[in-house]
C-alpha cells in the first residue's frame, strides 16, 4: 500500500488526489497527505500519474511497512513503475508499444513445456 509522499519532491499538484480510485489522499493546507491509507488497494496508479515521482507504493497489499526515502532513492524505486511503462517525460517508447506478446492462449500452447 501507499507508504510515502516525498515532501521534498511533491509539488502539490494534487493529480494523485484526483486519480486515486479509492480516494486515499487529501490536500491539507497546501500539502499532500495520505489520509486514508487503509483504503489503498495497492494498484500503483498514483505512481504512474505522479509527474515528479514523489510517491511510493510498497508491494504489500494487506499491511503497512516502514520505508526509508533515502533507501528507496538509493535503490532507484521512486518512479521506477512510471519509467517501466514509459510514462516518464522524454521516454522514447511506451511499454504498450513494446508489447509484442502474442495472443496468450496460442502463445502458451506453443511454448509451454508441460501441461500443468
Amino acid at each position, binding site marked *: 500500500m501507499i507508504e510515502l509522499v516525498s515532501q521534498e519532491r511533491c509539488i502539490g499538484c494534487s493529480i494523485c488526489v484526483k486519480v486515486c480510485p479509492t480516494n486515499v489522499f487529501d490536500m491539507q493546507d497546501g500539502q499532500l497527505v495520505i489520509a486514508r491509507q487503509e483504503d489503498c488497494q495497492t494498484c*500503483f496508479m498514483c505512481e504512474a500519474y505522479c509527474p515528479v515521482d514523489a510517491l511510493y507504493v510498497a508491494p*504489500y497489499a494487506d499491511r503497512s511497512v516502514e520505508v526509508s526515502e533515502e533507501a528507496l532513492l538509493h535503490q532507484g524505486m521512486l518512479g521506477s513503475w512510471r519509467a517501466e511503462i514509459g510514462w516518464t517525460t522524454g521516454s522514447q517508447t*511506451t511499454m504498450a508499444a513494446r508489447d509484442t506478446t502474442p495472443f496468450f492462449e496460442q502463445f502458451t500452447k506453443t511454448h509451454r513445456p508441460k501441461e500443468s
Partner: protein
Amino acid sequence: MAIQEQAQHLKTDVLVIGGGPAGTWAAVTAAAKGARVVLADKGYCGSSGATAPSGTGVWYVKPDERLREEAKASRYDMGGRLAEHRWMNRVLDRTYANMNQLAGWGYPFPLDDEGNQHRRSLQGPEYMRLMRKVVRKAGVTILDHSPALELLADEHGVGGAAGVNTQTGIPWTVEAGAVVIATGGCAFLSKALGCNVLTGDGYLMAAEAGANLSGMEFSNAYAICPTFSSVTKTAYYSYASFYYEDGTIVEGAGSKRGRSVIARNLMEGRQVYAVLDQAPEHLKPLLRVGQTNFFLPFDRRGIDPFTDPFPVTLRLEGTVRGTGGIRLADEFCATDVPGLYAAGDAATRELICGGFTGGGSHNAAWAMSSGSFAGEGAAAYVKKLGAHDGSRNLERKSTQPIVEEGKGSVKPSRAAEWVQAVQDEVKPYDRNLFRTGEVMTQSLNRLNGLWNEQREQAIEHTVDGVKAREAAAMTATARWMYTSALARTESRGMHKRSDFAGMDDNQHYRLITGGLDQLWVRPEQVRKEVVVH
C-alpha cells in the same frame, strides 16, 4: 461538507454508471448516436477498476471462419456449454471492430517485423487513459469520485440515479432517459488488483429497480497471487512449479486444474511456494512486457520469480473473473427493466463464457463489446422515448433510506463489521471454492440475518455512508450467489459441489435469480442452436 442547496442536478439522455472499459465504450457509443451522456465513476474514470492497472489479452480474432470456430470452441466445454454462438459471433465481430477503432484513436499497438500492428492485447494504464480522452472528446460529462447510491424510476422504468461526490460531500442527481450499469462485478474487497471499487453496487441498484441476475453461482473465481501482494494475474503460473517449504514438489498443483490442490494445502496450514522455473529463457523478456505489472511487486522485494520460490495464496475475485451478473433481455444489453441497460462484468458474461472464464481476453472483449451494445441500445431507447420523457414522476429505489449527512443511523465502524461478516462467508475455500449444500445453507442463513440488519439502516451522503452501502451490496451479492449455488445440484464451470461432483445433463440451463428480502431462483433454458465444434 454539503448542505442540501448545493446538490448537483443534471438532466441528460443517457447516464452511464461506471467508467472502466465497459462504461467508457458505452458512453462513447451512445454519444456517437447523438445522445447527451453523463458518466459517473465512484473513483476516477481512467484509473478505476480491474482493467486500468493490468495488462490483458483481448479476444481479437480475424474474421476467418476456421479461426473463429477454433476461438469459440476453446472454452465452450470448460464453461459447461452455457455460452451461445449467436453472442460469441457478435462479440467477436464487435471486438474486432473496436480494437481497430482503438488503433484509429491512437492506441500505441506495437509493430511486428513487417510493420503491421499487433492488436492482441491492451495495457491498462495506456488503454484507460486513452478511453478517458476519447470520452471527453465525445462531449460526455464525467463525474469522478461520484458513486451512485440508488436508481430513480417510475412506472415507465428507470429514469436516472442519485449519489454523492465523496471528495466534496455534495449529493448529485442525474435524470436520464436511460441508464447503463457498468459498475463491474464484485470481488468482496479482497484487494485483488484494482478490484476494491468493485463491490456489487450495480447488482443491488438494478435489483432494487426490479432487474434479475443470471449465473450468480459462477462467482467464486480465485486467483493465484503472491501471498503478500495484490497482483492477481494467474496466466503466468502456467510456467510455475509449486513446492513445499522443504523443497519437495506439490503434486498436482497448477494454474489450471491444480488450483484446488493449492487450496487444500493452504486450508491444512501448509504453505505452498511457486517459482516460474518452467519459463524458457528466450520468453522471459517478453513476459516482462506482456503483463503490465506482474513483476513490480517482485522487483520491489528483490525477488526473481524465475528462480526464487515465493509463497502464494488464492485471492477471491468473485464475479470480476467469475461470469455471473445482471440478466440481459436482448442483444443490446437491455435488462428486464425498461430504460436500464447493463454491460461489462456487471452483466452476465455467461453468453460468451458460460460458467468459466480463464484468462482476461474474453473479459476484455466482453467489456468493450457489451459496452458498445449497451450504448447503442440506450441511445435508441432514448430516441423512442422522445417527447414522453418530459412528464416523469421518479422515485428513489434504494431499499435503505439514503439521507443527508448527520441524519443517518449507521455508526462508521458498522460498515467495516458488515464487510468482515460477508467476507467470513465468501472468502474461505471450504465454503465457497469447495461447495456443499450444508455449509452454503449455513452461510446463507447468516447472510439473510445480516441483510435484515442492514436494510433498516439509513445511509448518509458521506464516505462512511458509501462504505455502508457497499457492504449492503456485498451482502446482497453473496445471498444471490449462494441461493443460485444451492439450486445447482451438480458441478459445472467454476461451480464445484463436493456433494454433487460431475455435470448433470438435466441441469444444462441457466439459473436466474433476484429479489431483495425474499430471494428466488429459477432455471432458464439456453437458447437452442446448432453447435459446431
